[in-house]
């Protein structure tokens, strides 16, 4: 009974933190001259209120979830990966090049092939900082940030150069985008009339696969051991260097898959750049970190976490359209929620300690009574 109660309160605290953040957001909405309750209702309704909204939320959550479960792998191995943006871009590029190269393959061949190439592209871009870390002791924080910049410029170079839609050259408009990718590479839609596509199922499967990998395989055990203590892992005979590379490669692979799905599930079915990575990724490479940490680095908890943050982004855009409230508000609000929830962890831990301490005392006194009784 006691345990159930403590479980409930330990859940109430992060929820309370979200509510506190939303209350601050409400004040901000008031200051902007918008009605907070109807504002939030608009957001919630747009994200979860109907099938179309749910579909949009699911779509937004795909890259967040994939990057997030990738982050679960690397952070569990105690390797920081801030290179999600670059890995998404590289995965998307590899997949796009593949689709453009094999336009005649049928859907059953081409879709798996391009997704696989996305995984590979991201894995290679993740393995590079892994190798730099393992063999040259270059901080992965530095290299992943720097490789983001490199990936964006490779994208710009390719989309303005060899990959550009020949029609753009012909017309002289030179928009840096590929031609429409072969229709056989389109990700099939799940339901008639809704935008959500196969990518969502793939992301869910990936989350499950990463859970299996981390807790049901020898490789996962090795990665987590390295994460807990590199020294101890080394003594136990686990190849630490190789594990670091593997962790970053797998993490990058998930981000690369996210990038590929973004391209083949997009409205335009082509890759296009505005010169920045954000224009393509929508900052999923960063937001995925938030999703994963919010889920306690657990791949399965990352699913609801990604839906929550995906829903917030959908709601933000809807709020901007409905009430002309700048979507910047929701970016700030996301930040507040993250800060509040992470901070609330402290109170949850305190509460748990308090409970276990009380349990220990009760146990103690019970034993004493028994002793006295006998």
């Amino acid at each position, binding site marked *: 009974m006691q345990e159930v109660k403590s479980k409930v309160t330990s859940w109430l605290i992060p929820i309370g933190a979200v509510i506190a953040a939303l209350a601050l957001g409400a004040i901000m909405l008031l200051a902007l001259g918008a009605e907070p309750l109807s504002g939030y209702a608009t957001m919630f309704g747009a994200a979860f209120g109907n099938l179309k909204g749910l579909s949009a939320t699911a779509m937004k959550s795909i890259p967040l979830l994939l990057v997030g479960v990738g982050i679960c792998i690397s952070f569990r191995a105690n390797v920081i990966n801030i290179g999600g943006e670059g890995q998404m871009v590289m995965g998307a590029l590899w997949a796009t090049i593949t689709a453009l190269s094999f336009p005649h393959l049928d859907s059953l061949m081409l879709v798996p092939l391009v997704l696989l190439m996305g995984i590979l592209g991201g894995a290679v871009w993740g393995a590079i900082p892994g190798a730099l870390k393992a063999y040259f002791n270059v901080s992965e924080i530095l290299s992943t940030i720097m490789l983001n910049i490199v990936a964006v410029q490779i994208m*710009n170079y390719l989309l*303005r150069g060899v990959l550009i839609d020949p029609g753009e050259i012909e017309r002289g408009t030179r928009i840096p985008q590929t031609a*429409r990718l072969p229709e056989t590479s389109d990700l099939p839609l799940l339901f008639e009339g809704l935008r959500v596509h196969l990518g969502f199922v793939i992301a869910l499967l990936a989350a499950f696969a990463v859970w299996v990998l981390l807790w049901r395989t020898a490789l996962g055990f090795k990665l987590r051991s390295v994460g807990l203590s590199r020294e101890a892992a080394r003594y136990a005979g686990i190849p630490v260097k190789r594990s670091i590379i593997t962790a970053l490669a797998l993490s990058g692979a998930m981000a690369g898959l996210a990038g590929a799905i973004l391209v083949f599930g997009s409205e*335009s079915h082509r890759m*296009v*750049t*505005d010169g920045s990575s954000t224009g393509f990724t929508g900052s999923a490479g960063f937001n995925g970190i938030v999703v994963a940490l919010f889920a306690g680095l657990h791949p399965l908890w990352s699913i609801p976490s990604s839906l929550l943050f995906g829903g917030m982004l959908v709601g933000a*855009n809807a709020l901007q359209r409905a009430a002309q409230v700048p979507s910047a508000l929701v970016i700030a609000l996301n930040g507040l929620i993250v800060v509040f929830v992470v901070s609330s962890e402290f109170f949850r831990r305190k509460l748990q300690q308090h409970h276990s301490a009380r349990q220990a005392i009760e146990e103690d006194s019970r034993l004493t009574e028994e002793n006295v009784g006998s």
Partner: protein
Amino acid sequence: MNPVRTLKKALIAAATVALCLSSGNLFAAGKVLKVAIIAPSASNDLAFTQSIVEGINAIKAERELDVAITDGTFVVEDAAAAIRDYAAKGYDLVIAHGSQYGGSLKEIAKDFPKTAFAWGTSADTFGMPNVSSYEAHSEEGGYVMGMMAAALSKSGSIGVVGPIEVGDAKLYVDGFVAGAKAQKADIKTNVNYIGSFSDVALAAEAARAHLAVGSDVLTGTAQMVVGAVGVAKTKKAAWFGTQANQTVLAPEIVVACQVYKWEVILKQILADMDQGVLGGKKYAISLANNGLVIEFNDKYELPADVKTIGMDAITAIKEGKITVLK
């Protein structure tokens, strides 16, 4: 019964019927059109997005419109979602103001045959009956200002700060360079595309690099040039602007700006819609149709002969005596 009066009545009735018929179309008279705009940067960026917002506001002063604007949509997929959302909500005209949105629009427009879409800057309607395209012949104003810049430069060197070499940025820069060369064959025009639409700091440093090699007249296009204008101001280099009137940024150095008057083509698009035409047309603003206007800064003491060069060039382009980049 007075036959004259009967005739009068009949005439009035006929006229009324004729009037109704002439305006009889998809959009019944009196209905307020709903227009949505999706744009990449902020509505007040003194550049690309501001130009379309000012355009629609100018129309609103003349006829009643229900306008919704989603600005700052630099994530292409978010823009696609907004375009689809507005169309589904029954907006009559959805304007995708960014060439990077075209690929998405091409797919979405198929699903909403009764909605009119417009996108720019581009000259491609995808052969669809409900998509129109619009573009700016920004090379024309570029040419005019390039000529004035060359005449104004004492050092013989001019600096250009560009974003990425695409769309109307490329047209403007190419026109500017051509104009400068036409005015003074041996002029040096250094063009620096910084590779970003948003990096203000890099644009500022690019302007400094131009000044360092001796350029005394600068120009640039896209929303990140606000940084470059600031640098030009500290060094008292002359500045030519485009897309929107940037005089407010630096009244002491802005010579002239090519201002986009999108209302010229927006008016045409709406008029066509009144006739039941939803798209399939290509529109363009140019000096000739007053969609492009060179606005001089009165506070800048521009030598009369240089201004004459500019005015003559405008007239020549309007009359078709000069064709730019053809």
